């Protein structure tokens, strides 16, 4: 009991400390720093929710970009004012209920999550009828279908033109608030009996079934929760970039998320957080490899795509030589820290 109380206090203190740091950045930080911090938070939300299905359940879902797209479009359509929508939709006007509704940002995020969850629910039956490679391809297929629909359904998504001029509602409080909320909820799920059942399915589905676990129900729950937070993060992303179009949410995004959780360690929320932080930071820090360089008399023109080459090599090196990634399946815990301190003292 004492230990649990101690951990609770320490967790609360950490969150308070985090928000104090955020407050300092909010006041004194540059735009650049704030943008990177926002990116980190959005990718933490995405990676932690993606890790729930890929790492904890051991199911290779390649379609999180579908949920992110749906979330982004839903939330964007809800926050734009009717007048803005009228200007944006040049080719075909927006269909009826959407063209008059306007919701505050927070409510639009919740709706974005719910719409993504409903979509996940509808595709769950075909998705979980298969496993392994087939599941990967089916989910990838749904990701592609959503992209095709975004291009085709011009009276909802404005087609290839996308939605422009969204208000930059996403600030540090929204992005980090949701990131922390996602971590708390996903962690509580993982540490519950449901989470242990999910891990059992990951290790051996037949054995899990023999113990009376219904794989479909457990995988569905993980899938729906993952979709909800991906949708919410999609909404955050839309109001961070302020311009969305179908080309923004391709398989590239899924690839980046996969890399994050593989490098962090498949099956570890801590790993997902570390991976997301490294990625969002590295993505900016590595920008120099794509910009023109002057090394002495040698002029190297900017090479677009170099970052993705580096990322693909990192992914392959990690999966071939260090399959466990940074954290493996371990998690950060205060108990571990204190046991370290104690053993040092002796």
């Amino acid at each position, binding site marked *: 009991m004492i230990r649990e109380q101690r951990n609770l206090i320490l967790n609360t203190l950490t969150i308070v400390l985090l928000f104090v740091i955020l407050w300092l950045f909010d006041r004194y930080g540059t735009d650049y720093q704030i943008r990177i911090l926002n990116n980190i938070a959005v990718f933490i939300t995405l990676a932690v929710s993606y890790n729930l299905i890929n790492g904890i359940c051991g199911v290779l879902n390649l379609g999180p970009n579908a949920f992110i797209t749906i979330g982004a479009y839903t939330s964007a359509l809800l926050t734009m004012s009717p007048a803005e929508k009228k200007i944006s939709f040049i080719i075909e006007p927006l269909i009826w209920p959407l063209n008059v509704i306007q919701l505050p940002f927070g409510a639009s995020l919740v709706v974005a999550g719910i719409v993504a969850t409903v979509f996940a629910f509808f595709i769950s039956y*075909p998705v979980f009828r*298969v496993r*392994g490679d087939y599941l990967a391809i089916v989910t990838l297929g749904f990701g*592609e279908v959503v992209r*095709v*629909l975004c291009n085709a359904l011009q009276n909802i998504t404005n087609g290839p033109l996308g939605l422009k001029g969204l208000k930059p509602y996403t600030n540090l409080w929204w992005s980090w608030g949701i990131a922390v909320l996602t971590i708390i909820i996903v962690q509580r799920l993982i540490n519950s009996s449901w989470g242990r059942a999910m891990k059992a399915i990951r290790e051996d589905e037949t054995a899990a079934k023999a113990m009376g676990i219904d794989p479909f129900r457990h995988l569905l729950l993980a899938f729906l929760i993952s979709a909800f937070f991906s949708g919410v993060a999609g909404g955050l992303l839309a109001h961070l970039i302020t311009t969305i179009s179908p080309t923004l949410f391709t398989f590239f995004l899924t690839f980046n998320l996969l890399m994050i959780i593989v490098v962090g360690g498949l099956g570890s929320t801590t790993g997902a957080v570390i991976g997301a932080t490294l990625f969002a930071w590295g993505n900016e820090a590595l920008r120099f490899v794509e910009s023109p360089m002057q090394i002495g008399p040698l002029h190297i023109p900017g090479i677009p795509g170099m970052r993705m080459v580096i990322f693909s090599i990192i992914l392959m090196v990690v999966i071939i030589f260090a399959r466990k990634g940074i954290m493996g399946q371990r998690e950060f815990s205060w108990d571990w820290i204190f046991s370290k301190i104690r053993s040092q003292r002796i």
Partner: protein
Amino acid sequence: MNIQIFIQQLINGFTLGSLYGLVAIGYTMVYGILRLINFAHGDLLMVATYVVIYGMALFSLPWYLSFPLAVMVTGIVGILLDRVAYKPLRDAPRISLLISAIGASFLLENLALVIIGGVPKPFPRPPIFDKVIDIYGVKVQVLTIYTPITTIILLLGLLYIVHNTKVGKAMRAASRDFETTRLMGINLDRVIALTFMIGSSLAAAGGIMWAMKYPQVNPFMGIIPGLKAFIAAVLGGIGSIPGAVIGGFVLGIGEVLIVAVFPGLAQYRDAFAFLVLILLLIFRPTGIMGEAIVDKT
């Protein structure tokens, strides 16, 4: 729609389908042996077309030399792919293998982007494929006739190799059981390398014909044909070589005819293949020619 247009579309479908089929053979062979979706397989199409372009532009090779050269180079790239990305993971969980495959695919695409650049290049189609012939009022480009014929010839050759040669027997053995294959004194790594080489060479042939049909080449051109060819392989029954070609034909003809009959659906064309896949996995996961999918342990 009159009968002539219908026949024309049918021939188009056959051509498209035979391209899917050629690429699908590579998927199905690799899947049969390694139980792995070789994600990078589609990108081999891109490798082959760039080899042709550079062979013809830089070394001014005639097409009848640069096409075989591209097929050979792609075969070697296929072997290298296996060595670098898949061989170290033979005993790893399947999910790692699949992630490595996705990484390899992105690496190939982005290496091409870095080395060659993202601007689409025109594919130098040899003029003899441009000729248009008239069969009872149906005007057809000779290319659309050559493509299915080439596919059928390659398929027959491959079936001969698989069923009538020692190497083919080794491949069939490897697709049943690794351990026993090794015990029979077969060099498994050689068999796998050969499988990759044959599959990649066929993908190269498919890629060259694809580029002659759609002569715009860019580093990401292999993704969509690759995915659809995979669907064709599943449709035909994964692991079955004739099934892959049949699946390719069904998918190609279906895709062309749907757009021909309902022109309004043209923009959903890319979604059609995935819809087929999803329905297939719900109702008949083993495909047209397939046996039941068993997990090889």
